[in-house]
């Protein structure tokens, strides 16, 4: 440490000729300017489960509409499970979990997390009821329960459509959640991030369809898998390459590894979805791949942002450039 740090202090190691060094990055003892997010794995996990729940309800509604009961059943149950997990992750990540209900104190359009809270407040029950409706066949034919048994499918369909209506918001607001921070690599990515999340939400949901639904019913899932994966891969590619310096964190370290793996799995999953349309096993495998890809994408994006917050250069350099461009016109001292 000593030796290398001492070297680092000499311009040679700093890779700077004197004249360049002057304009080179400066910082307060190399310490980060920003505070890195304190969120643990819960948040990226939630990003994934939230997307999965959203995608699944959309698929479920479609299946309901087009008479694909097996796929409907699978996706509705997946949706409930996912939204349940989401709630757990969100509360578990709080510094004061017992105060989770404080989220309902206010409704702030400026706070994506507040908006998300209210979205979940609508989506959760709806998705839940839709899933419960799948229990109708198990109920006795007569008596009160019988009555319920006959009413449930209707209610299920209705709430299913409601959930599907809210689902796109649920799947994409999380992109704003990350983008609406000072974390350079998240904030700069705000135009693409919603598409990454939307795409991988659809892809992962279709993954469920491919896993659970019989070949006869999984046609839409296959098409959706291709579209979703395409969106996800295309949008993340732009994030990883199109933002100059702040793209860097997405290509390095853990974030880079995870995003590269995600891309591979997405492509494989989509291909499998198409090519394996007559093979139950291949379909199931590609479904699993798409789900894994979606999860890896979220974790990768998350890691990239954290890395960008921890290194002052991602904060200072872009701002310096901005100032120099501004000063290019007038030379008034800042």
């Amino acid at each position, binding site marked *: *440490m000593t030796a290398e740090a001492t070297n680092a202090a000499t311009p040679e190691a700093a890779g700077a000729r004197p004249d360049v060094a002057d304009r080179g990055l400066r910082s307060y003892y190399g310490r980060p300017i920003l505070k890195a997010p304190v969120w643990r794995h819960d948040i990226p996990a939630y990003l994934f489960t939230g997307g999965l729940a959203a995608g699944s309800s959309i698929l479920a509604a479609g299946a309901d509409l087009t008479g694909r009961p097996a796929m409907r059943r699978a996706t509705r149950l997946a949706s409930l499970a996912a939204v349940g997990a989401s709630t757990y992750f969100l509360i578990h990540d709080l510094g004061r979990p017992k105060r989770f209900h404080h989220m309902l104190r206010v409704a702030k359009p400026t706070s994506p997390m507040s908006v998300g809270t209210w979205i979940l407040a609508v989506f959760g029950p709806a998705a839940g009821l839709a899933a419960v409706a799948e229990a109708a066949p198990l109920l006795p034919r007569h008596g009160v329960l019988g009555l319920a048994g006959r009413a449930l499918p209707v209610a299920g369909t209705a709430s299913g459509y409601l959930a599907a209506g809210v689902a796109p918001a649920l799947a994409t607001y999380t992109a704003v959640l990350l983008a609406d921070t000072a974390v350079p690599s998240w904030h700069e990515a705000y135009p693409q991030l919603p598409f990454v999340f939307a795409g991988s939400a659809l892809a992962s949901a279709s993954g469920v369809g491919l896993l659970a639904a019989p070949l006869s019913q999984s046609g839409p899932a296959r098409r959706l898998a291709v579209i979703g994966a395409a969106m996800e891969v295309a949008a993340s590619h732009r994030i990883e390459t199109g933002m100059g310096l702040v793209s860097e964190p997405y290509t390095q370290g853990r974030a880079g590894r995870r995003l590269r793996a995600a891309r591979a799995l997405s492509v494989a999953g989509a291909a499998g979805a198409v090519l394996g349309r007559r093979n139950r096993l291949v379909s199931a495998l590609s479904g699993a791949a798409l789900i894994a890809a979606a999860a890896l994408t979220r974790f990768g994006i998350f890691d990239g942002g954290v890395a960008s917050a921890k290194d002052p250069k991602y904060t200072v350099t872009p701002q310096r450039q901005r100032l120099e461009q501004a000063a290019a016109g007038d030379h008034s001292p800042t």
Partner: protein
Amino acid sequence: MVGENSLYGPLDPALDAGYADAPARMGFFTDTSICIGCKACEVACKEWNLVPDHGLSLLGMSFDNTGALTANSWRHVAFIEQPIPAGQRQSPPFRDTPTGPSSEPATAALAATTAIDTGTIPGADPGGEPESAARMAAGPAMLGMPTSGLPGRQQGREDRKDLRWLMMSDVCKHCTHAACLDVCPTGALFRTEFGTVVVQQDICNGCGYCIPACPYGVIDQRKGDGRAWKCTLCYDRIGDGLTPACAQACPTQSIQYGPLDELRERAEGRVADLRAAGQTTARLYGHDPNDGVGGDGAFFLLLDEPEVYGLPPDPVVTTRDLPDMWKRAGFAALTMLAAAAVAFVGRSA
């Protein structure tokens, strides 16, 4: 009241936050040119606000053993040693002394790797940017003398001409457009009638969203406690007409408290005086209502570039782009529905 500048641009934050007849906006002006680095502000703040200690660790960052603003340090005094002439000094102290190369870049680079446990999350991480730390310590002097590079390159006698020791007491900026406040999902962070930004500890549930939202890296989470903490500009004191603890203690009035308008006026005058006295590098930071955060409630007079003190050179509040963000999210959402439709319509009908 929601106005066109509610998210960006000049604004009276108290009015915007619904205070009909709010008192004058109060704030801090920290004049680093007269800071003696005594750290009375750090201690006075902790005594009044009952802030926990930040732990014992020698950081080797000159006399800074606090490291950064954290949940357990709401004032932080930065120390920077630079082997360059301070503007006011009339005779270079080290002239004719048998001094070799300056050690400051090297020592700063080493200091960049020291660890701190501040009892908070994320607290103050070592940066892993020794090169940029070295350049901080080298100072802007070379800009004036293109022939010489970083001090430390030249050899022989009389290398160190002079020494400048920068000291600066950092604090929460109480932004006009406060991202921490806007992203807070519980309303724990709120705008006071004085235009300051305060965390309400009876509300905060430690969701942690405010922490990555702050463009200055001020707000932080306390271990064990789980909640977010930062400077309150002594909301309880100023409500009773008292001066915030740090400003009251400051021996040289480097920290000045008062109505923001008066402070801005005073600051302009001070900069002019310093420039006239040869302190050409003196500049204000965070005083401009037209900057990226609509101006800071706590602004500074600096003698070097902001990043040298650990401040972002040109912070912009993230919520400036929020409307665009929602728009993009909306497109993506519609795209989802469209995609689903396509997928189902396909050959199923």
